[in-house]
């Protein structure tokens, strides 16, 4: 893998397993912070924490989930420190409410399926930004990064059932937002 040999200072075991996940951490941090400098800072903090607690990492277990867990905790700690508190326990209530809402409004009709044709470059980013943090996080992990439900559950420290309900709600919100953006494009085209 390494093209250049240098004498002195081997690549550490930590870098050996963690370095391949650096891009993933960076992308996830960008989705959380929406800001490059902040994302870099968050990954740096994650990296140092991981490095310092590497003895707690079980070599047989999932490294990317482990690193993402540290990233998520570091991010939530930041929010708390800054007073931008988003309690994940509030989520339970939100989700219950959302589920009832979902049943009432049969919002998953098919006509809006056509909006896929009109999704423009950048729409997904914009739509994702409108999602509340817990939904944004679950979509980022499962849909953008392709983590399994089990991995997502580990990162979010919640049961798989919660991952499923949150993901379903997140996708529904995302779909609604994308459809709105698509309608806006359609509207602006017609008005021209």
């Amino acid at each position, binding site marked *: *893998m*390494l*093209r*250049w*040999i*240098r*004498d*002195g*200072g081997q*690549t*550490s075991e*930590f*870098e050996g397993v963690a*370095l391949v996940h*650096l*891009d993933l*951490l*960076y*992308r996830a941090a*960008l989705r959380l912070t929406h800001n490059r400098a902040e994302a*870099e800072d968050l*990954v*740096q903090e994650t*990296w*140092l924490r991981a*490095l*310092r607690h590497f003895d707690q990492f079980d070599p047989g277990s999932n490294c990317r989930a482990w690193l993402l867990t540290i990233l998520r905790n570091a991010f939530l700690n930041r929010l708390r420190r800054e007073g931008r508190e988003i309690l994940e326990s509030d989520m339970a209530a939100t989700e219950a409410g959302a589920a009832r809402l979902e049943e009432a409004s049969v919002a*998953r009709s*098919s006509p809006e*399926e056509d909006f*896929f044709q009109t*999704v423009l470059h950048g729409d*997904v*980013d914009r739509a994702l930004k409108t999602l509340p943090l817990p939904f944004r996080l679950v*979509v980022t992990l*499962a*849909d*953008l990064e*392709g983590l*399994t*439900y089990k991995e997502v559950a580990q990162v979010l420290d919640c049961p798989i059932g919660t991952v*499923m309900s949150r*993901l*379903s709600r997140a*996708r529904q919100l*995302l*779909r609604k937002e*994308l459809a709105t953006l698509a309608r806006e494009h359609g509207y602006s085209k017609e008005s021209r």
Partner: protein
Amino acid sequence: MNCREFDPRLHAFVDGELDAGPMADAEAHVSTCPGCHGRADGERRLRQLLRRQPRETAPAEFRARILALARRERTRKQVRAWLGTPALAAAVLLLAFMLIARSLSTGGHESEIVASLVDKHLAYAQLEGPAEFASTERPAVAAWFRQRTGLRVPVPDLSPAGIQLVGARIAEADQHRVAYLLYEKGHVLMSVFMVPEVGRRAALAGRSMSFRGQEYLAQERQGLRTVSWRDGQTLFSLVSTLDYEALLECAEQLRAERAREARL
């Protein structure tokens, strides 16, 4: 499976997260129920749209910083393990303080630059493709620098010494913009850094070495050899595990190339 049973399994079905039994049941239902088929299809398309999003990578500069961070942390740990007693630690702290104070008074600024250049070399040496602009063509590399920075960067031909051009980068070191050429000899990387307008406020640190009538400063850092010199307002620094003779030879070629360019 009927629609009511399928509904809560829709996402797990689309994500391939159902166990074999329920998966087969769900497939059977979807193949006979247009409504659920349509919904599964819609979810699949959303999923594909999301998976198709461009996947950004961490900027090389940031990656290098992360690598340097890990290395510093490692050194810190080793030092900690090595220092058994608090008294000894205090003594070393004092010594470190004295060293810092000393380096601040004598050429601290530029040793810092050289230190960060060494960090950069180490960081990029770990990358599969360390060049931002990969090319073995000297004119192409020179043109890239001109276009990107407006700088005229001498790109010497070191191939007679068996050293091949790999490419170039633009880097930041100590708040300076740095032109960075990468060469390799076999599997050994050599970095050539050029820091324009470095200022005259401090002398370069290191052992002075004379080579064919020119003065250079040599420093060993983290198992690497560095050869640095100033030419007008520009600081030049070579970093590699190559021996000093090879590095000085390259330095000489670089000077000659720069002089040749100046005449043009």
